[in-house]
């Protein structure tokens, strides 16, 4: 088990990490999800022992390893840009950490064979890395990390430089590869979809803080704060300020947006005291057609439509911008006023301090 207690990292007067505490169990897959500069890489470097926290401590299987160098820890890392030894064959690349650890040659042979099979590298073992495609090079780096059989495997956006389809394939394979190794896997990404496909646990990061940590699907469905909900949404989350007045949420649009109709407060939020809140709703919960239960109808002016073939993203000038994700192909001229609908029970509600007032059940209906 890897445990971080109140870890902070400052460089000069810049805060890279702020009071991070988390426990990663053996055999678990953990995703660090957040935008660029949110602290994912800083956190991984401290987990690895590449950096020392300014304050706080790191424990591994009960012993304090704060400040213990990376060489003295049992860690493997995979980076965004594939790092392989260019002069060594794929076989030698995968075998290198085991050779350094002076493992018996039969064990090295067996392990390389097994890992290469897993990552579909068997036909390429005699090649040099530069004779391989990007995906194969990154699989070689992954294979080396796995062959090391480390207790902690850290992967920093390992698929970011790969083709879309290769990413899709490796993403599906990675959880299978993790299974049964007993190691702790930590995987950093900026993409919500990647976190959902990998499963396991997810920690959302923002400005050096871990805003939430738990099973991936439950962080997605029941975010604690508005900012967690926003981090964990692609397309971007639709949100805006409202004033609760009795049984109505009265929108408080910023800037020059058109006036919005009031939204009836869902039953489960009626108990909230009147005052300022933020509401949020995911793009795929907005619909061009009235919904079966709890229907609310609003309208917005179209900014742009994006068609993917099977679906259309309709950008509307509501608050800063709301996006509706609908099935089928729809084209609307910019400026066209489009009516849209949603189930009021799909609304997430956050207090003025951005904390969720109650975890809404978005799975309902």
């Amino acid at each position: 088990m890897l445990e971080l207690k109140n870890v902070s990292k400052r460089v000069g007067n810049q805060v890279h990490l702020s009071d991070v505490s988390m426990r990663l169990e053996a055999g678990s897959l953990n995703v660090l999800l957040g935008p660029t500069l949110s602290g994912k890489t800083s956190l991984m470097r401290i987990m690895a022992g590449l950096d020392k926290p300014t304050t706080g401590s790191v424990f591994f299987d009960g012993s304090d390893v704060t400040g213990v160098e990376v060489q003295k820890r049992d860690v493997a890392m995979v980076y965004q840009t594939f790092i392989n030894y260019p002069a060594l064959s794929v076989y030698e690349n995968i075998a290198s950490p085991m050779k350094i650890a002076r493992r018996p040659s039969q064990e090295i042979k067996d392990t390389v064979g097994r890992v290469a099979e897993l990552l579909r590298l068997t036909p390429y073992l005699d090649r040099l890395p530069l004779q391989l495609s990007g995906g194969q090079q990154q699989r070689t780096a992954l294979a080396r990390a796995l062959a090391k059989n480390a207790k902690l495997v850290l992967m920093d956006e390992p698929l970011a430089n790969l083709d879309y389809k290769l990413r899709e394939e490796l993403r599906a394979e990675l959880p299978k590869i993790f299974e049964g190794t007993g190691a702790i896997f930590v995987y950093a990404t900026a993409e919500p979809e990647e976190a959902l496909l990998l499963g396991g646990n997810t920690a959302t990061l923002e400005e050096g803080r871990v805003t939430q940590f738990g099973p991936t699907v439950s962080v997605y469905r029941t975010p604690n704060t508005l900012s967690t909900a926003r981090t964990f949404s692609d397309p971007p989350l639709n949100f805006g300020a409202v004033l609760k007045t009795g049984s109505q949420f009265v929108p408080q649009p910023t800037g020059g947006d058109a006036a919005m109709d009031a939204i009836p407060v869902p039953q489960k939020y009626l108990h909230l005291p009147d005052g300022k809140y933020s509401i949020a709703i995911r793009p795929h919960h907005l619909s061009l057609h009235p919904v079966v239960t709890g229907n609310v109808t609003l309208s917005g002016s179209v900014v742009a439509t994006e068609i993917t073939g099977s679906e259309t993203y309709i950008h509307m000038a509501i608050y800063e911008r709301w996006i509706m994700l609908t099935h089928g192909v729809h084209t609307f001229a910019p400026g066209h006023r489009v009516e849209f609908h949603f189930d009021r029970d799909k609304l997430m509600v956050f207090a003025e301090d951005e904390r969720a007032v109650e975890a809404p059940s978005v799975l309902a209906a």
Partner: protein
Amino acid sequence: MAKITLDHIRHAYTDRPQSPADYALQELNYDWADGGAYALLGPSGCGKTTLLNIISGLLTPSEGRILFDGEDVTTFAPEQRNIAQVFQFPVVYDTMTVRQNLAFPLKNRGVPAGKVRDRVEAIIDMLGIAHLGDRRASGLTADLKQMISLGRGMVREDVSAILFDEPLTVIDPQKKWELRAQLKVLHREFGHTMVYVTHDQTEALTFADRVVVMLSGQVIQVGTPEELFSTPSHTFVGYFIGSPGMNVLPAKIDGATATIGDEVVSLRGAVAAPAGAKTALGVRPEFVELGGEGLPFSVSRVDDVGRERIVHGQIAGVDVAAILPEGAEVPANPKAYFKPEGVNIYADDWRVEVAQ
């Protein structure tokens, strides 16, 4: 702005190409309409950057001609072709302010000061970065710098075309949504011919009126996003567009029926597949319904990806994926029904028409 004509273009990086395999770009004849928004989509090594470099003039094709509005520009250098380019990584002058960076391509060509000012303000407003206009570029984040690069690509009104090479790579996912929509607004506003290279299907499909899908130096299909989705002309297009891609099941075709394993699926109409061809039925996961009717489907895994559930399983020993809505139950011992409008038939990987 210009119509771009590719006239029997072919390119090999070797001096004496012997066989088709020596060509990085196979023969291509195509007109890019004036004011069109095009995307070149394909895996790395498919030839899309080669094609872009031929259009920009960084590369002279081994064979064929390239014409801008009918004028042969095959031997013209990039600067003679009057095009703007936006690259994968920001190209900005760190010591200049945002406004100076945007004004640079105009000043360089002696555009009068008043005109430069108007144009820079129009672009800066469109990008929503007017408040940063007088900041030096050096202090800005990578994505803001890339926005300036995009702005510089758009600032000249008189260019023949604007070429984009993976321009959103360094941008965070959330910001991509904004920038993509802004690119669309800018395209509508100024009507430039735009060519956009990417390996990301979402970017290609949302940006372009027409998407050019490439594989191994060959253009496999040119179509609207809707066409690529509903009638992929090749199994590769079905696989590459869509996530997960199209299911392809080997099938025996006989008139208006397809036989998969021991199961028979009736088609919308008769199909005339060439004799001896390897035939298959293609159906996207969006058109596979799990219920009490259809082909026996053994579930192997269910992925909850938030807005939908992806069910992986097998039909007659072939991997098949189905997409279910958020929160939907996967029925016990389901059968898979293929919605007829989503079924395409392939012979040796190329789509054959189903008679209506």
